[in-house]
Every structure is written in C-alpha cells, then in structure tokens.
C-alpha cells in the first residue's frame, strides 16, 4: 500500500513538471523517465533474479528499429510503440530459453553478444533499415514546446507503468520466485520452483519496457542509427544506476537514475572532452566504496549514528 502511495505522489509531482514550458527541463525530465524505465527493467533480471544481463541495448535498439520500420510503412506511432514492446519481449523469451542456461560471466558475454549481433544485422540489412545511414522518423506537426511536453508525458507514463508492474512483481509470487533464484538457484529447483520459466519471465519483463522506451526515444529524437541505439552504454548505464540505488530494491533504480542523471549532466557540462573518463572514475569509485548502493549505505550510516546515541 505504501509503495502505491509513493508511486501516486511521485507521478503527480513529476506530472506537474509537464506544465512547465521550459524545453531544457522537459528534456532532462524525459531522459530521467527513460533512465528510470531502463534501470527498473534491468532490475528484474539483473537485480531481483541475479543474472548479469548486458542485453538492455539489444532490446532498446530492437524496439527503436521495430517502431521505425513500421512507421516507415505508414503505420501510426502508437502501433509502432506497442509492436516494439511485443517484439522486444518476444525476442527476449525466445533467446532467453537457451542463454539463461548459462551463468555468471558466460551469461554476461552471451547477453552482450546479442546486442552486437543485432547491431551488425541492422547495419547490413540496408534495404529495410538504411544500414549505417540510419532512419528518419516522421516529424510531428506540433510546436516544439508542445512536442517536448507530449514526449515527456509519454515517457513518464511508461515509467509509471513500469513501476506499477515492478510493485506487483515485487510483492507477488513472481518476485518471490526471482529472489529465490537469486539466492540459490539449485535450492529453488529442488523446492519446486520452475526456475527456467521464471528466469525467462524475468528476462522478458526486462525487455518489454526497454523496447517501448527505445521506440519512444526514436520518435523523440526523430532519427536513429545502429551505433546510437545499440550502444553498449545503454546496457551499462542502467546497471550503474541500479548499483547506485541498491541492487534488487523496489525504488532503488529510480533513485539511482536521478543521481546518475544529475552526475551525468554535471559531467557533460564541465568536462566535455573527458566525460567518459570522469564517468569511469565515478563507476570505479562506486564499485570500490559503495558496493551496496547509496540507499543501503545511508541506512548503515544512520544505524551507526543511532547506535552511538543509545
């Protein structure tokens, strides 16, 4: 109940931001919503279930291209977005069955390879995807501020939907099964948890919303190319956000997305030439000093202070 309340208040607060006509603020808001979607999606497989997936970029790019190809065939935008989610989710279920048999490093590398393969396939299928030239998406006949508001609300809506599903999963049977697999997969199997089905479900969940996010992103920026939407950074950033916020927690990924976006924006503004290196330093510092996320670390510090007072 408390979680739904947080979601409602959060939605209301972030929804009010749409009233602002400031396009910079709306751009940041849209990025934030997109990061939150990607981070929460990754959390299903990487956080709750404990499988180190590097496939987010694959789903994001697949969604973006599915929607772009449909819209190039004169389909409406909404159909493109819905199809993006279905195709990405279906693809994840299909590919998940074999590669989720792998564990640890092997799973990580296999999931990473999927994005590489998809990128090369898109790169070489020039008749359909335009290859390395990329694809243009139809322009909307709306003033720029209204467009900014519309895409912000769409991305926010997706983030709210993802959070709602995350809450349901977290408190439901599904989340329980995911956490069982994370803690000890063999034991879970012995106790009768159908680990194969649940792992695949987690992978599928992590793909659906990432795919739709990719589709919305495509329309938002009007142009996609393989190097952009299949960029490995789309796989790494969500993971960093979740690590920042706290692995496997419910609202941690959103918290991580806010912190990450703030850092990223500050870095881009001040260190354009070496932004990748600064990001690298942040990642290294996080792994070394905050391995359990900001939220958990705050709790520990608070507990220590309380302990001293008592």
């Amino acid at each position, binding site marked *: 109940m408390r979680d739904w309340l947080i979601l409602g208040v959060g939605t209301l607060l972030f929804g009010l931001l749409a009233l602002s006509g400031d396009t910079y603020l709306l751009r940041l808001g849209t990025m934030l919503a997109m990061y939150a979607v990607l981070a929460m999606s990754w959390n299903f497989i*990487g956080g709750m279930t404990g499988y*180190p997936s590097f496939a987010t970029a694959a789903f994001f790019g697949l969604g973006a291209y599915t929607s772009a190809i449909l819209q190039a065939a004169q389909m409406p935008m909404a159909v493109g977005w819905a199809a993006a989610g279905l195709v990405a989710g279906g693809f994840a279920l299909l590919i998940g069955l*074999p*590669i989720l*048999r*792998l564990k*640890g*490093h*092997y799973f*990580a*590398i*296999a999931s990473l*390879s*999927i994005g*590489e*393969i998809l990128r*090369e*396939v898109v*790169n*070489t299928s020039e008749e359909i995807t335009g290859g390395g030239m990329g694809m243009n998406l139809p322009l909307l006949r709306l003033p720029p501020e209204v467009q900014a508001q519309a895409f912000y609300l769409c991305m926010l809506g997706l983030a709210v939907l993802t959070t709602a599903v995350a809450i349901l999963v977290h408190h439901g049977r599904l989340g329980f099964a995911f956490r069982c697999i994370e803690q000890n997969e063999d034991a879970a199997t012995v106790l009768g948890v159908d680990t194969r089905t649940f792992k695949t479900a987690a992978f599928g969940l992590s793909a659906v919303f990432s795919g739709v996010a990719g589709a919305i992103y495509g329309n938002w920026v009007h142009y996609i190319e393989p190097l952009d939407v299949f960029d*490995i950074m789309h796989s*790494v950033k969500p*993971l*960093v956000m979740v*690590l920042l916020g706290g692995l496997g927690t419910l609202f941690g990924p959103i918290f991580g997305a806010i912190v990450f976006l703030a850092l990223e924006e500050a870095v881009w503004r001040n260190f354009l*030439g*070496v*932004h*990748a*290196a600064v*990001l*690298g*330093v*942040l*990642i*290294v510092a*996080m*792994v*070394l000093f905050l*391995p359990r996320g900001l939220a958990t670390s705050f709790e520990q510090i608070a507990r220590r202070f309380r302990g001293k007072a008592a």
Partner: protein
Amino acid sequence: MIYLQILANGLALGGLYACIAVGFSLVWGVLNVINLLHGSMIVLGSYIALFAYTTFGIHPFLTVPIAGGIVFALTYALQRGIINRVIAAPVLMTLTLTFGLDLIFNNAMLTAFKADYRKLILENPLGSWSFSGVTLPVDRIAAMALAMLLTLMLFRLLKDSRIGRAIVAVRMDRDAAALMGVDVMKINAITFGIGGFMAGAAGCLLSIIFPISPLNSTVYLGKSFVVCVLGGLGSVPGAIVGGLALGIIESFGAFFLGPEHAVTLAFSLLIVFLIVRPTGLLGKKGYE
C-alpha cells in the same frame, strides 16, 4: 587454389588472434575476472610500437619486450591497487569495475593520441613469398610466427617454472593452492601482469598489419571473447586452437558471405558454442 590462399590467410590471422586472446583467457581462468581493459592494453602496445618506430626507428618486432614490459608494469599495479580489492565480489562488480577502468584508459588514449586511424608503414618491407599460387606477405608471416613463439613461451613458463606451476595451481583450486603455501594474492597480480604483457606484445605485432586507433580496442576485446569461448578457458592450447579456428572461420566467412558479416558470424558462433559446448573445443569437463 583460392581456398588454399584463404586457408593461409586464416592461419596467419589466427596466430595473431591466439596471441591476442591468450592473456585474456589466462586472467579469466585464474582470477575469474573478465578483463574489459584487455582491448585498450593491446592498443597501448600498438602505440608504443608506433612511437618507437617513428621517433627512434626501432623495428616493431624489437619493441615487443619493451611494450610488453610497460603494459606488464601498468596492469600489475592496477591489479594490486584496485582490482584486488573486489576480487571475491560477484561477477557484476568485477565486470563493472573493469568497464569503468577501461572508460578511463580509453578516454586518456583518445585525448593523448586522437581518434584518427594511424598506420605504421615499414620503410623496408620484406616483400612477399609466392609459391604454387599462394602469396604470403613476409612481414605478416613473421608477425604470426613471433606471436606463436610468444604464446609457446607462455606455455613453457606455465609448465616449467615455479611461478607458472603456482599459477596453474591457483587456476585448479584457489583454496587448496593457498593451503599449500602459494601466495594467491601475488599470483593474482602476476597473472594479471602476464595478461598485460601478452596484450602489449600482441599490440606491437598487430601494429604493422592493422591501422592503430583507440577505437579498435572493442574489436580486439570482442575477438578475445570469441577465441576464449571457442578454444576453452584459461589454457594456452585452448587459446591457440580457438585463435586458429576463428582466423580460418573468418577468412572463409568473408569469402562466402562477405566481409561485412564477419562480426555477426563470430558472435553467433560464440553463442552457439556457449550453449552447446561451454568448455570450448579443448576444455575439460568442469573447467568451463
């Protein structure tokens, strides 16, 4: 006859791939860490060769021990100072850490050397051999031969030296090795350094064949993944078999399917191998 030529090209390429991947494979097998820095270390080796040649006129083949030594020192220090702190952490942590380190190094190289592709052009190339319709550039063959020599030296090092046997012992059973008095922390750092040495050395050899740019690091890293999985993890013969296999498959794939599908082919093979035979061509059961 054309097939013989393709086979020869594939073997020449494969020898270099083996040298690229053997250090990566050793680190993965012994430390259980996927070292995402590996590609950047290879590129660093190439730049050292380039500068040694353009400023001092030292032939890239002679730079091999220098570049290897420099990268050894760098990776040894990195392992001791940073990576060792999370060596027992879950896969996700070590992967993220080496990714972050790679961002730093790659960005540093981009700033220092710029992103343009540079080419090391030898003033006195050795020409090419040609017999019964198969043409082989001698420089390429020499680079491949040196790569194989280095790889075999590593093989002998692991088999014959005290330190090598300690590395193999840690690879087999970390706890048992520690109980037998092996200083596991030291072995970790040395193994990581050896991985770096092989990367730097491979970079030198590659510098006379491929264009040099920090952007190439991900390509080399991708090759290392595939070779490791094809051949089997953490063993020198595995890397040699995997490297040669990848070289031959890529050459024939480029001929039959077109060079633009090389990456797709390599990564598809990787996934198939992971699923069907995770121990690799030469791996032993339980050693995946």
